[in-house]
């Protein structure tokens, strides 16, 4: 398994990989195109975050599967083709009909993708299986997010999506309105207040549970320094950290996994497995000649000349350290 010149896994597995994965790559690409078509039209910034997260997750799946196909020496699918055009049209129309319709359209497509992953995961071995399992988990999480939002907006307690969720709806949403946490993409209950910022600023919302989790994630030195911060400054630091890639990835691998009833795939912190090794030659450096350092005659003015003279007179410079 490698690029050219490297060892390769067995041919059967690679051919199988290509045959199985290219249709999924094709479908994921098509749904990305559909998402791109609706993002600029979405009014609720929270749902823009949901859409962006779905897009990023699909991009990761495509890149992962494309690598599997590429190492098999085959060209991965590079476009969503006619399906993409159809889904773009469908999602744009659904968007016009409202957010709920758009979410339902996306969920339909997503459910199909989850089903396809579930069908192929057992047919692969080794790291290919590990990889597809990760893609599948991402798809399940996307489906859960969409399902939860539809269940909430759908209103009735017996709505199909509500029944499909692994947890009661109030574990996903602490409030009745349409607020979406920019970190976990739900609006989970917790101890601290949710944080909301808008008015003249770009709108951002962090749910109570994420507020708790981000505060707990400050390293000890920053947590100590934060005792000096005003409430406003502390909130701004929490929001900044919550919106960073590490915090969002942690939420995806821990929180979304839990809320989707899949086992968390959070990596353990790496153990320092290497000691510093100095590969520099141990021989002594040969003495170099002292080079010419003066710049006589170039300066355009007495002031410049005085500076240049000082620059090459180390004692003068050192007196300014």
């Amino acid at each position, binding site marked *: *398994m490698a*690029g*050219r*010149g*490297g060892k390769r896994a067995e041919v059967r597995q690679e051919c199988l990989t290509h045959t199985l994965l290219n249709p999924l790559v094709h479908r994921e*690409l098509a749904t*990305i195109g559909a998402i791109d078509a609706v993002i*600029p*039209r979405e009014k609720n910034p929270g749902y823009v975050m949901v859409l962006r997260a779905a897009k*990023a997750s699909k991009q*990761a799946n*495509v*890149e*992962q599967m494309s*690598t599997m196909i590429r190492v098999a*020496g085959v*060209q991965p699918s590079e*476009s*969503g083709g006619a399906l*993409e055009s159809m889904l773009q049209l469908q999602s744009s129309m659904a968007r016009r009909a409202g957010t709920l319709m758009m979410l339902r359209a996306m969920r339909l497509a997503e459910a199909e993708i989850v089903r396809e992953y579930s069908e192929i995961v057992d047919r692969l071995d080794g*790291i290919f299986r590990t990889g597809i399992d*990760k893609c599948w988990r991402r798809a399940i999480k996307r489906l859960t997010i969409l399902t939860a939002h539809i269940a909430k907006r759908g209103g009735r307690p017996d709505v199909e999506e509500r029944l499909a969720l692994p947890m009661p709806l109030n574990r996903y949403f602490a409030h009745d309105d349409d607020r979406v946490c920019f970190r976990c993409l739900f609006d989970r209950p917790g101890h601290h207040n949710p944080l909301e*910022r808008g008015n*003249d*600023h*770009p709108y*951002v919302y962090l749910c109570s549970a994420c507020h708790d989790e981000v505060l707990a994630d400050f*390293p000890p*030195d920053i947590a100590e*320094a934060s005792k*000096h*911060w005003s409430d406003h*400054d502390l909130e701004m630091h929490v*929001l*900044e950290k919550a*919106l960073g890639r590490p915090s969002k990835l942690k939420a995806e691998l821990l929180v979304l996994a839990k809320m989707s009833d899949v086992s968390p795939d959070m*990596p353990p*912190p*790496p153990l320092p*497995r*290497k000691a*510093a*090794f*100095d*590969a*520099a030659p141990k*021989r002594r450096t040969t003495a170099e*000649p*002292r*080079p*010419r*350092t003066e*710049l006589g005659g*170039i300066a*355009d*003015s007495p002031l*410049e000349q005085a500076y240049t003279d000082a*620059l090459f007179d*180390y004692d003068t410079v050192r007196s300014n*350290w």
Partner: protein
Amino acid sequence: MTRTVETWTPSVCGFCSVGCGVEIGSSGGEIVAVRGRKSYPVNRGRLGPKGLNQFYANRHPTRALYPMIRNRSGKLVRATWDEAMTAIADKFNETLITEGPDGVAFYNSGQLLLEEYYTLAKIARGGFGTTNIDANTRLCTATTAASLMESFGADGPPGAFEDFERTECIVLVGHNAAEQSTVLWMRILAAKNGKMKPKVIVIDPRRTFTVETGADLHLQLRPGTNIALLNGICNLLIRNNWIDQKFIRRHTVDFDQFRETVSQYPPALVERITGVPQARLRQAAEWIGRSKTTVTTCLQGVYQSNQATATACTVNSMHLIMGKIGKPGCAPFQFAGQPSSMNTRECGADGTYPAYRNWEDVDHMRDLAVRWNVPVELLGKKPVSAPEIFELVEKGFVKVLWVTGTNPAASMTDRMQQIRGLAGVFLIVQDSFVDTETAQFADVILPAAMWGEKTGCMTNAERRCSLLMKAVEPPGEARSDFDIFVDFAWRMNLRDKAGEPLIQYTDPEGAFNEWRENSRGTIPDYSGMTYAKLVERGGIQWPCNDDHPDGTTRLYEEAVFPTPWQISEVYEKDLETGHEHTQREYRQKRSARGRAILIAAEFREPAEPPDREYPFTAISGRQVYHWHTRTKTMKSPVLASAAPGVFVSINKADAKRLGINDGDIVRVTSRRACVEAPARVGNLVPRKTVFVPFHYGRLDRNESANNLMAKSHDAVSKQPVQKSAAVRVEKVRSADGRTWW
């Protein structure tokens, strides 16, 4: 003994962003001399001590001569190129399959060549879609880019170096020009004896060499209070009507909001916050306001400090309210740090997309996808910054980290924690030297050609692109970074939509030509440049295209700014959280229609203020004889002997109270780690402040200023705060009169 030069090859200095023209003297396949190019407009023959002495690094015995791989006993042993590159490709493929694109990361430099950045960006973003790519420019000029985007809609420094000679007033904010930009400082000093005789105002907590050699007014403020001081100056400019109402009305938005914010900073309050006497503040405002022309520069004293982007934006706003932009002698000069940091920003090898394209704008991404012939669906990912990448490494999300031409084990804040991450990740180090602190944790070392040993372009802080010609062959088996990246793309079998290799060019000129086309019609337009033209002209300022075949001296001469949503590089971020508007929010917020945005911010205390346990503030900075972590400068006998070691500057009143004499060894301790070094006692730093130069970082010594600094960064630019940590100071032992100075 000086050897006779056989050949002089035209090039550009490989240190700072001034980008002086040099000629490299070679003899017998070795570089033996460097001299300034008298015909080059930037320096006209001038060079600083680093520029003159840079070639000693090229022939140093610690050069990386062949690839190395860490064996099972933990030793780095010699390998062939094929073995090393296969190991890397295998590891990348395995990680991409099991983890996806979040599992790999690239951390590159501000010292590579344009063609190398472009190729790396294309591989990472267009090849396998990782967004974990950034450069060490995050530590030096990320705030430059961020502030230009916030104020004007896109990156791109508006001014030119000739503005320093055509101005009546120069303001240096956190810019120790005499030690950082020596040749620019020479030009400024020459101008002071010339026709314009500009007043020079220096804003810096330290009495620096710049203050000593050429300042007319020094505003010695407390660390971390830049924004209060600048708000105070802007307030006085408005109150005294030293502003251009017509320009404000026609070419800016949000003036009322700006005025409201800065009006809350009267001189008395500014003095209380900053420690700068009111009279000095008024003097500065008067010189700035009454001069017909003003140039203001910012550098690390702004960019690595508290409220970095807000401060830099306030400088931009100060110029906008006076209408001092886009004219000779007028520019907010947000400086670059390294010689090619402009290129990493332009080409998308940092946290941006190539040619200042907006990652959120599907049309921008579609345009890029067409030019690269890759699926548009895989572009448009939110960029990830270096501090985030290193956190991802530390937490185990990133499994493979490829470091090119930089030394994070010495340069990142909270360094001891960062080193733990480097010791755990699969680390590829592509560098010219094997003795860097980072290389000691490598799993694979790739020997890279360095300055003078390869051909390609660099663009300086005034947007001037120059061609550096190869003067000598690299030593041993070292290859150019360009060749290494192209080989990697081939081994990864990266292809475009047509099934053709993603990287189809094979030499730097081919890469440059593709970049020219990629940038055509964008803000940093290189389409009118060719290698032949660069050789002939010796450096051209972008945009250079059919309309401006000779390049463009300064931007915004018509005072039309790239703020419309269709061309803006960013949709305006929240200065306090870093969160960006969605496209829809940006369009609804206001219609800037080509007008610049006036930005002001309230002063906020630094994230780690001093307290009873840690009563001092540690700041860091540079010495003129060294560059960054001394990877190159420590190899020059002259430079190494001029600045042989770390020290701690302390105010003599504090020293007396603590029983510290000049040269005594002191320990400076923060919440994270400590520095032990001889004390330099004097009046250069204010009371309750210590200064530590940031160049030193040997693994076996407590000498790194970055040991002290927290892992905190500016919310918008994500630039680490390397100029402020709460510390305590204690004497360790007496020097008994022995010092190296």
